[in-house]
């Protein structure tokens, strides 16, 4: 089944006429995603390799029935674009942009609380890939095939690294979801794990976290209460010193809060196995998958 993106996705790309926007929109289309429109104010009426461009999301939705938006505009315009997509009735907004001001994200997040019909993934995320069905974003799809492992991660290339290790161990993926590295993500580990728990295709869940904030600790509590499927975690940043932002705006240890060690402990305390390297994550997953097969046989 997969989650969030699939054959029913109708994608509208904000920033489709920019270099990156065009490149990735076309990649997504080549993969099989229905890319139905783009939005660039002032370029309405043009097209990008046959994909019609509109001045506003409202026009794009009215004319093409888009239900998913990919936000690929620079930081100073991104929050506004997210809000515009929501206002136009888009149900799923995937914000790739990195560098959006934290206060913008705070406002967007709090505004979206009032609209359960619109889900935000990201910002500062690589997007969502459901192998064999659809790819929205910049995840390199060729490494992954369909299967039963759901992946949710705060990072980009580290996700591909872990995903690749899983693939080399013979695993396929239901969906790979990047929730992004910013301090106020639109969706949390909990939000995505909840979807994986309800998804028939997903039998094993892998979560990749990192220093900063308390999302992994909160996920640990949620998993104990609500998740029956096995979960394996990886946490990056054991070696990161406090007080220094490690690349992602959200990856900073403040005082004693948000350390990798604390996150690993919190997860292990709730029965989540934590791999110490990406390779170990795949090894643990292989062990758990073996158990799944054995229990299915009974």
């Amino acid at each position, binding site marked *: 089944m997969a989650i969030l993106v699939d054959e029913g996705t109708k994608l509208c790309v904000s920033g489709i006429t920019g270099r990156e926007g065009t490149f990735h929109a076309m990649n997504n289309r080549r993969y099989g995603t229905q890319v139905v429109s783009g939005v660039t104010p002032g370029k309405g009426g043009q097209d990008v390799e046959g994909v019609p461009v509109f001045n506003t999301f409202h026009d794009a939705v009215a004319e093409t029935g888009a239900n998913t938006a990919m936000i690929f505009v620079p930081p100073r315009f991104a929050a506004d674009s997210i809000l515009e997509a929501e206002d136009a009735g888009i149900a799923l907004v995937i914000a790739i942009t990195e560098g959006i001001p934290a*206060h913008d994200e705070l406002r967007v997040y709090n*505004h979206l609380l009032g609209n359960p019909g619109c889900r935000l993934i990201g910002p500062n995320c690589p997007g969502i890939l459901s192998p064999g069905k659809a790819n929205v974003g910049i995840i390199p799809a060729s490494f992954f095939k369909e299967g039963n492992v759901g992946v949710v991660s705060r990072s980009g290339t580290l996700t591909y690294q872990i995903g690749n290790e899983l693939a080399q161990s013979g695993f396929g993926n239901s969906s790979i979801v990047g929730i992004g590295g910013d301090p106020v993500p639109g969706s949390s580990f909990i939000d995505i794990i909840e979807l994986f728990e309800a998804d028939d295709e997903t039998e094993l869940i892998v979560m990749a976290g*990192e*220093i900063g904030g308390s999302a992994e600790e909160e996920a640990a509590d949620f998993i104990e209460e609500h998740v029956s499927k096995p979960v394996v975690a990886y946490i990056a940043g*054991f070696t990161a010193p406090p007080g220094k932002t490690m690349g992602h705006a959200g990856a900073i240890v403040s005082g004693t809060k948000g350390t990798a060690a604390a996150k690993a402990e919190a997860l292990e305390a709730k029965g989540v196995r934590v791999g110490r390297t990406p390779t170990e994550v795949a090894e643990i997953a292989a062990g758990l998958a073996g158990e799944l097969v054995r229990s299915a046989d009974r």
Partner: protein
Amino acid sequence: MDLLEYQGKQLFARHGVPVPSGAPASTVEQAVAAADEIGYPCVIKAQVLIGGRGKAGGIKVAQDRTEAEEHARAILGMDIRGFTVHEVWVEAASDIASEYYASIVFDRAAKKPLVMLSTQGGMDIEEVADNNPDAIARLHVDPLLGFQDFHARRLAFEAGVDADVVRPVGALLNKLYDAFANEEAMLVEVNPMIVTSDRKVMALDAKVTLDANSLFRHPDNAELRDAGGEDPQEQMAKERGLTYVKLDGNVGILGNGAGLVMSTLDVVAQAGGKPANFLDAGGGSKAEAITQAVEVILSDSKVSAVLFNIFGGITRCDEVAKGLIEAFDQIKPTVPFVVRLDGTNDEEGRRLLAEADLPNVHAEATMLGAAKRVVELAGESASGGGEPEGETVPPGEGTETEMGAADTRAEAASAAVTSPPGEAG
């Protein structure tokens, strides 16, 4: 981005938060002139991005010109816990009846600003939180609604501030929130917020952290970067648009993607190595970007080996290999490099590197293998010593060096190479 105290106070003043009058000074002459202007007694305060200034002797009251000069001379240039004092803030002395505490924090977990107020100011707020948590009044503000008068009253009455200053304390909080929201701060802390004997309320200290991602729309704030406090490498990296954090060790690290780089640091540490830095080169495979990144890493003389960890998604490994070959042609590094290319076109990338047969460059296929290799090489290279950057050197590890340098580096090497029981494969 952290601001110095006086920068925070100037920011407060822009939003009407009452602060004592003062002036910055970076020389003794300027400090004395400022003190004369402000009048006596005044306070000479070290401006550094670290706490504990008072204990270190960085905050002194001057009763007259002689003392002002004496204190300025002592404080300017002093080292406070690793930070050099380049500037002081000369401030009118305040007469303090009470010391309160107020702060606004960007609370990620709640996804709302958190406002805190306490009458237990002037001391470590973490201690108050531990010993007497009820002494801190706190509430979250809906960022779409903003800070309302009733929020101020609620905090003031809950914290138990003196009845006659409930209004001015509330007004100060209101303006503080204004500053927090409009300047896009992650933290605004006033400790102490004082009540004077003539019942005025003022911010006696200012600790402000701004969101680095917001600076593009606050050019005044963008200029406040404290260049004096930066590492030369971090400065260099910033100028080149690279994300770099300096650490303590001797294994230079470069990768594409912040999570992957953090992971690389962890894996190297598990292999017994000590990372020298974090550097995210992003999605670039262009020679110029790689050259610049390598230069930044190598400008840290402690680096005795470098690990290049690339997972190519959209980025193609053969392009990265070409970029590397060009970069190495320019730089001719004298410390060993371990290059690990995985992902799109990885075999082609590794083949190109092998063909180029660069001295001091070793290719590895896996992340774990690469980490172990670089730690080995860092150890050997450290005890063999390295030549100063830019001079040609015979290829391979274990070249001889000056005796003095070898001793300390050998110590570092053995510390680095002693691996704790780590990962099995």
